[in-house]
């Protein structure tokens, strides 16, 4: 039920939010061309020390004509802006996520090779590799946004620990867990919404809350993938029999690894989407609170 609600309601809520943010842009499309939007986005990720260089790239783009020429220039500059140091603390977060991903992927590949799984499993391994690279790229962008890295990574750890707290921490728990309805509500709605709301309160901005929820989703997905893959490595084809039964050892391992891929994608999407909603709701509630009254003596007009 919670899955159904999330996947049905979220696209509608996203469309409504985009319309409310800028009705004209929603109906007519963006007013700036693609190269300018791309470069504007990439430049917004630069550290404050490099902000002038971002303006330099945008200024140069403003003097170029021709769609292809502009796009080539913007693509090159966007690539440079994404990697241009200094990264500050974000570098530590990115290295942690690279280590996490490399460990998961290596273990996944080791199990695929060790159990001599079939062609379909090698394709699944390639899919995991592509997903992991995508996650790392997304995380590298989010980690550079001011005030997002720490709450986002903490949110990912929180979601993972909350999930493990309900399923149990052993390897057997990972492959046999079927959540009760209340656990499903907590996992799918309460925890992601709390992460998004906390992100909004931390950054005092719903946009920051959305970024925190996205980073938490990516880091929780990768953490859960590692934990679940370690569980498969420990159990192999052993442990309790699967409900659908009739598998060989290879079939059981392949099935468990496949489940891990599905969990990776679904849990990431859920945390990102419900976290976004939680961030938006928290932002709305914070805005509705009346601002504290300012004493007359502190008003600039009075002082003048």
């Amino acid at each position, binding site marked *: 039920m919670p899955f159904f609600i999330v996947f049905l309601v979220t696209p509608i809520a996203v469309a409504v939010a985009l319309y409310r943010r800028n009705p004209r842009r929603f109906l007519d499309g963006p007013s700036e061309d693609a190269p300018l939007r791309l470069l504007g986005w990439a430049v917004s990720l630069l550290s404050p020390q*490099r902000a*002038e*260089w971002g*303006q*330099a*790239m*945008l*200024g*140069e783009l*403003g*003097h*170029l004509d021709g769609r292809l020429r502009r796009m*080539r*220039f913007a*693509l*090159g*500059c*966007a*690539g*440079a802006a994404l*990697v*241009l140091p200094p990264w500050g603390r974000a570098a530590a977060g990115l290295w942690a996520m690279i280590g996490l991903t490399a460990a998961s992927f290596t273990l996944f590949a080791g199990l695929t090779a060790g159990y001599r799984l079939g062609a379909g499993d090698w394709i699944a391994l390639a899919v995991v590799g592509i997903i992991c690279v995508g996650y790392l790229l997304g995380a590298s962008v989010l980690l550079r946004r001011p005030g997002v890295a720490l709450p986002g990574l903490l949110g990912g750890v929180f979601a993972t620990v909350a999930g493990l707290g309900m399923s149990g921490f052993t390897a057997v728990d990972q492959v046999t867990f079927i959540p009760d309805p209340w656990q499903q509500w907590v996992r799918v709605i309460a925890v992601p919404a709390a992460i998004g709301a906390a992100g909004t309160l931390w950054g005092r901005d719903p946009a920051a809350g959305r970024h925190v929820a996205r980073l938490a989703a990516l880091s929780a997905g990768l953490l859960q993938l590692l934990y679940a893959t370690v569980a498969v490595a420990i159990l192999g084809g052993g442990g309790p029999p699967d409900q659908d039964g009739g598998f060989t050892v290879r079939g059981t391992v392949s099935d468990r690894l496949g489940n891990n891929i599905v969990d990776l994608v679904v849990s990431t999407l859920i945390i990102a989407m419900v976290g976004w909603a939680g961030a938006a709701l928290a932002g709305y509630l914070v805005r509705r609170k009346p601002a504290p009254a300012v004493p007359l003596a502190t008003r600039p007009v009075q002082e003048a």
Partner: protein
Amino acid sequence: MQRNRPPSPQTVNVLKALAADPARWRYGYDLVSEVNLKSGSLYPILVRLADRGLLETSWEPGVGSRPPRHLYRLTGAGREFVAALSAARRDRGAARPHRRLSEA
């Protein structure tokens, strides 16, 4: 700690292009075209040169709807660096045939 690596061939090309007329302010896209570099390679090079004090920057005010434009030229230290680089290359060029002869 600043590493003292020799400049890459691309950096040397940018330095040579800037040193060709050191008093003139240059635009980023002019350098992209002249040195035949991608913009994604040029800007990190310009940032490093500016960080090392070899490049000075300025802004040309925007005209009409066009935004302000960033300008670049070598500093005094930049010119000295290019001169030293050229001298070192000449010395190496002169030493290499001699060494080959001695090796032979």
